[in-house]
């Protein structure tokens, strides 16, 4: 009896965890790709995701568009924003010390949070309206809501599309070459600046879509939502092995499951610490993450 109940709970929480985890994965991809190419922790990425969520909200409440249109529009808004951030705040610092672009990223992050707070008129959360008829599907022991299905389908579609782009297109090949060796790639006639811009654009598109999906899932968004989710997604990227695209997906889903399971097991007051605790544990035993390559010490 207890066992049966436990199993049912387990499958249900697994589905919830994978749903949450796939939104983390969407954002983690942006961190991991940028890090893979220019070794920068793009702390402003969480803010891109937040602005994606707000764009979606404006579209569905003011213009009453379909949620698919809102997701696409959010992606389209986030792309030029991320390219602009890279141009203004990171490119002048590319040859500088490691900490300079990091501080610059934090500056951008503070700037965007304040900007959205000012435009919105206060830091309190806004309700994200119900954009779709929420029906519940039952599959064996598990109950899915429509939003969960949409998140899972959208996230998998985007990730498949990303894998395809990176593996089989010209620009994807350039991305892989640049992340392998920035200098050599530039000597081989690859326009590395374009590759970096493209990487930021792809990451931002995924984050924008993630923002709208999370808004639909949790029905609430606020100007500082990018901070914790951004940090956790970055954790996911490091957990999976930073610089590795499958690693970010794995890390995100792993983290989502761990967090949902942790809360279900009664550690809800420690929710925010689960991700970081896991991260530290993994790094201690496998210092470059689950799918990361070992670091070589060179003289």
């Amino acid at each position, binding site marked *: 009896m207890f066992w049966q109940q436990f199993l049912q709970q387990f499958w249900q929480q697994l589905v919830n965890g994978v749903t949450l985890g796939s939104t983390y994965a969407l954002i983690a991809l942006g961190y991991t790709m940028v*890090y893979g190419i220019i*070794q920068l*922790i793009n702390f402003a990425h969480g803010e891109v995701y937040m602005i994606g969520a707000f764009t979606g909200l404006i579209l569905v409440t003011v213009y009453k568009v379909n949620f698919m249109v809102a997701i696409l529009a959010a992606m389209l808004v986030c792309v030029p924003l991320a390219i602009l951030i890279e141009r*203004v*705040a990171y490119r*002048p*610092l590319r040859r*500088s*010390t*490691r*900490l*300079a*672009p990091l*501080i*610059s990223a*934090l*500056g*951008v*992050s*503070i*700037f*965007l*949070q*304040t*900007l959205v707070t*000012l435009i919105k008129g206060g830091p309190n959360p806004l309700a994200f309206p119900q954009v779709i008829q929420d029906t519940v599907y039952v599959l064996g022991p598990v109950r899915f809501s429509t939003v969960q299905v949409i998140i899972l389908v959208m996230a998998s579609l985007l990730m498949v599309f990303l894998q395809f782009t990176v593996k089989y297109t010209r620009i994807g090949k350039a991305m892989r070459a640049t992340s392998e060796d920035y200098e050599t790639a530039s000597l081989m006639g690859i326009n590395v600046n374009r590759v970096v811009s493209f990487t930021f654009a792809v990451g931002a598109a995924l984050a924008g879509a993630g923002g709208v999906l999370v808004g639909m899932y949790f029905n609430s968004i606020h100007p500082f939502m990018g901070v914790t989710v951004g*940090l956790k997604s*970055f*954790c996911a990227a*490091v957990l999976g092995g*930073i610089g590795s695209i499958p690693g970010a997906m794995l890390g995100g889903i792993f983290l989502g499951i761990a967090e949902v399971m942790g809360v279900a097991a009664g550690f809800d*007051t*420690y929710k*925010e*610490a689960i*991700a*970081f*605790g896991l*991260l*530290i544990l993994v*790094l*201690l035993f496998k*210092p*470059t993450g689950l799918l990361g390559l070992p*670091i070589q*010490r060179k*003289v």
Partner: protein
Amino acid sequence: MEAVVNVLTNPYYIQVVTMMGIFLIAALGLHVITGVTGQFSFGHAAFLSIGAYCSALMTIHLHTPFILNMLAGGLMAALWGVLLGFPSLRLTGDYLGITTLGFGEIVRVVFINMKITGGAGGLGGIPRETNIVIVYIVVALTIWGLYRIQNSRFGRALAAIREDEIAAESMGINPLLYKIKGFALGTFFAGISGSLFAHMMQYLNPADFGFARSFEILNYVVLGGLGSIPGAILGTAVLSLAPEFLRFVQEYRMLIYGALMVLMMIFRPHGLLGGIDFARLYKKIKNKRKSVENKNTESI
């Protein structure tokens, strides 16, 4: 004249300057870790909070003298610095940064969940022991101590690790051991700073020690000029006073603050005083004068 006296005795300004001194101690601690040893730490605020809670709880429950509590706060922070540093300082660069960031968040969540710290409601009723004189005596001692350490065998070993870990190792320096010692020293100052903070504000809340505070302290050190004590002082002074001077723009304050961070980094990527060594500069000027004098005597 009266206006000057008014400004100098205005309790609000005194509080601002005192807080600046308190965060200067924390910034000098981070200077040891990031500036001298070259290790990233994105969780410095956690050590402030450990020191703050430790000393505040001692004051409230044990009624021991403040100086003792302050030292205990510093030592407690250093102890946790060693405990964290021992496994994680084997990591390099960004991985170390992320581990310390994670540690900072965990500490915050633990303090929210603990009963003795008052949880999310915060810890009140701490007697006020800190004043501007005590803070600046500690600041002076810290600066003096750090100059002594930097010019010692130990300080040079830390700098050698920053410049090239492998070369330092081949010169007989045990990098892990020295990194942990440096980390302990830096977190000790963070704990002292936290203790002073606790007995200044008389109230502690885990939310005050989130990663935003850690990055704020990192900003002080980086914007002033990484690796230079005058840089850390200047960075702390400029950035902790900037919000006060930006008060006239009111709600646009943080907007300008963020934009300033980006602009400062673009135009001075090594910080305001980056690459300027005052001790060496002073020696150079002295030597020049001496050589001029020598020349003059020779010509006679």
